[in-house]
């Protein structure tokens, strides 16, 4: 089952690491790009808090420095997810994924609410744990097939990738983004700053969608 997501339209060479676009990855890439542009140009919303059952409501204010920092993190997150979408190298993909994980933590860690911060810390622990299966999986890929290039893996001439390597990779990606088991990330999504928080959920979903394609190769 090679060429699962279609024939690469375009291949860009970075030494041993190729960047390539297929109909599948280009869809994901464009979406990451669109939302990164949103993050660039839009201002955060002013979130209204309501005490349910009462008439009291307050608007949360975001300070300028916090907004700037989170915007920076969200842009970095968008770039990382774009990279993860188009890269044609397993290890490179894991690095971009790790970067998505750390930027996700960064986007919410700047929020002052202790509740959100505690959630960010717990999620950061998971993201850090996830680097183990992530890099471990990539290493087993290399050891068992002698290649890290997705294009070579898709050709089907290399030895089959062990199940463990694929499972590690998927587990690592799930840990970095929690996608699609977002229930654990719900506290983080309640943080104000819509464009940035959306980047959190978008990037983790994108890397999850990409890893599905990756594990089907080889």
């Amino acid at each position, binding site marked *: 089952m090679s060429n699962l997501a279609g024939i690469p339209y375009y291949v860009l*060479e970075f030494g041993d690491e190729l960047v390539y676009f297929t109909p599948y990855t280009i869809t994901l890439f464009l979406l990451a790009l669109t939302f990164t542009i949103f993050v660039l140009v839009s201002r955060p919303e002013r979130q209204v808090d309501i005490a349910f059952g009462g008439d009291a409501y307050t608007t949360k204010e975001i300070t300028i420095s916090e907004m700037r920092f989170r915007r*920076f993190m969200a842009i970095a997150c968008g770039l990382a997810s774009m990279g993860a979408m188009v890269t044609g190298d397993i290890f490179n993909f894991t690095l971009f994924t790790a*970067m998505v994980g750390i930027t996700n933590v960064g986007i919410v860690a700047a929020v002052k609410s202790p509740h959100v911060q505690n959630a960010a810390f*717990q999620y950061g622990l998971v993201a850090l744990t996830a680097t183990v299966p992530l890099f471990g999986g990539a290493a087993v890929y290399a050891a068992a097939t002698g290649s890290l290039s997705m294009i070579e893996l898709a050709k089907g001439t290399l*030895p089959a990738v062990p199940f463990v390597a694929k499972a*590690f990779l998927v*587990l690592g990606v799930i840990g970095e983004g929690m996608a699609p088991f977002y229930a654990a990330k719900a506290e983080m999504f309640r943080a104000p700053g819509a464009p940035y928080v959306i980047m959190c959920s978008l990037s983790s979903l994108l890397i999850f969608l990409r890893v599905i394609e990756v594990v089907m190769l080889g």
Partner: protein
Amino acid sequence: MIIRRISHYLCNYENIVPLFAGACAFIVLIGILLLPIQYHNDQLYPKTIDRNSTLDPYDRGGPPFAQATIRAQYPENSPSAGLVTSYLTPFSQFLADTTPHLGTTIVAHPGGILDEILYNTRGLDTVVEPTILFIAFAIASYLYRKGS
């Protein structure tokens, strides 16, 4: 009801670390059961060490300043591969000439095989890696400064 109990456990974010660690442990145990994994001998960047070279362990064949042979995935994409490997700083050259082994740690001088891989053939990895470092430092210093 079992569903309610599961969802109560899931909705507390304090529990995600044990949950994820448990999943990792589970997959690792499956990995142990699925051993052995066949090591593929035809590897990229194979390790061959010339113990007699004064550049040991960084000698990867060929004299300094000549293009060494690097078995990369796509050699045609990096025509300068092998030049970085054999490059020595004057200081390193001096050490190599005067001491029996240039016993340095990894990448103590430009010109090691690692530089070759990190800068040249797999440069994108190396760009992403300091970027992660950069992001992590940015988070730490932002929080640090906000706190003080």
